[in-house]
């Protein structure tokens, strides 16, 4: 049991540390689009998706989003992996109602699915640094964006530390421990982990200061590609209205 727990935490920390850093082995067309444009588009898409209960509108937006993602070259399998859970979850949440009104259940779930796809199109193609500088561009206060940045950075740091600790424990586990150990030592281990991450963060903070403190600013111009994408978004909104 305790080994299973440890293994689960290890896998989870590995997963999150990998997830948090967006890595692009295959870049899609969406990767090249300006973060600001993508951020606005996402909001537009989500608002379109959640402000109607008309089946045709919901299906239109869902279909368009899928088409755009697929043709832009996003990995659709990964997209599906990332949205199915929350979609299913929403389906379950309204399941009792769907018994009386199946159409409601379907539309509700599809609305959620469409919003999730819209958000994933942003997440899968935009680095966090890009997101932060886009938020700055839209006049989100500097304090907030720096705070975002710091929290994100330290989250990665903590998952990394956690993973390292668990691998190290494994390298020296020469006997099966007892379950009692987990309870006796578990609390202490969590506290220690917190302290250790905290002191590591203090040192990283020194490194940040050594190089001039926190900065998140935007540079870069809107390109022609961004205009093409904006046209697609505009067209989607237009078709949503008229259908």
């Amino acid at each position, binding site marked *: 049991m305790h080994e299973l727990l440890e293994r689960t935490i290890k896998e*989870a920390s590995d997963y999150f540390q990998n997830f*948090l850093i967006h890595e692009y082995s295959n870049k899609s*067309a969406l990767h*090249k689009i300006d973060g600001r444009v993508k951020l606005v588009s*996402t*909001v537009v898409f*989500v*608002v379109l998706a*959640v*402000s109607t*209960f*008309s089946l*045709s509108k919901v*299906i239109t937006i869902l*279909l368009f989003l899928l*088409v*755009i993602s697929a*043709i*832009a070259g996003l990995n659709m399998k990964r997209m599906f992996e*990332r949205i199915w859970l*929350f979609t299913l*979850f*929403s389906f379950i*949440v*309204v399941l009792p109602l769907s018994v009386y009104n199946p159409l*409601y259940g379907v539309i*509700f779930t599809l*609305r*959620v699915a469409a*919003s*999730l796809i819209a*958000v*994933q199109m942003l*997440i899968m193609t935009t680095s*966090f640094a890009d*997101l932060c500088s886009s938020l700055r561009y839209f006049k989100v*206060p500097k*304090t*907030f964006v*720096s*705070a*975002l940045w*710091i*929290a*994100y*950075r*330290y989250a990665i740091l*903590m998952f990394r530390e956690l993973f390292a600790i668990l691998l190290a424990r494994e390298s020296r586990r020469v006997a099966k421990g007892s379950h009692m150990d987990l309870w006796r030592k578990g609390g202490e281990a969590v*506290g220690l982990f*917190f*302290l250790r*991450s905290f002191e590591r*963060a203090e040192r990283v903070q020194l490194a940040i200061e050594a190089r001039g403190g*926190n900065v998140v600013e935007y540079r870069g111009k809107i*390109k022609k590609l961004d205009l*093409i994408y904006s046209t697609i978004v505009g*067209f989607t909104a237009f*078709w949503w209205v*008229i*259908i």
Partner: protein
Amino acid sequence: MHIPDGYLDLPIAGILYILSLVVLGYSIYRLRDEKFTPLFGIVAAAIFAAQMLNWPIPGGTSAHFVGGALAGILLGPYAGSLAMAVVLTIQCLVFADGGITALGANVWNMAVINVFLGYYAYRAFERFGKSAASFIAGWIGITLAAIFAGIEIGLSTSFGYGLSVTVPVMGLWHGILGIVEGTITAGVVSYIASSRPDILEEKAAPGKTALAVIAAMIVVSPLFAYAAELVGYSEPLENAAEMLGLSENPIYEGLLPDYTVPGIDPYTGTLIAGIVGTVIVLALGYVMARYARTT
């Protein structure tokens, strides 16, 4: 407890955005000259990690450790609410956990109500001991935050359940989960009290007026949400479309004269419109993908 996109009606989501922005804006204003400490980053990161464990509850949203009270106790209400807001934003923008349109509501529940309430509960009961105080703070913070979340989705027509279901479901589940939350909060606070007591020193509290205003806002927020729901009962975009007369007189009749050919029913018309639209998006997308390859 994260409300996803699609659960809230937009007017309610909008009003909660405004309320959250006011409180958060004030917090940021109060923090403007302060540097972020590593503690801020680590508390935010730890809460972020702890929140990743969650499970769905039918009739509500989901249940998980929230940590608002802990953030309030460790960082003070201002930095605490900022830390929570930041965590929620990252979850929304990196994990798609909690919706973009619902972010305002999520911040309101978990970064404002939970943090401020948790913080004051802790202060109020501190004289009975740090552990007891932080347990109560953790429990009451998450439970009330959940009840507010229940009110918000219950008022929304998009979410098929009414208040009579959502509030008890959210409140009850989190009241139970709150025991775990309280225990963890108490555990962390007492560990820190013993190993790094400097971290727990008195945090700057808001002035009396600010506090009264924030408290009043929390209390009346359900009324605001209710009012917003009444005003914008049907969906704004659909309203706009209706106002332009689009629904009765669809533009695609002009674009697609075939549609008016007698004998084709409205469903087929919609279907054709869907296909045509998809083809156009496909074409535009193709142009984009081609162009992207050349740059």
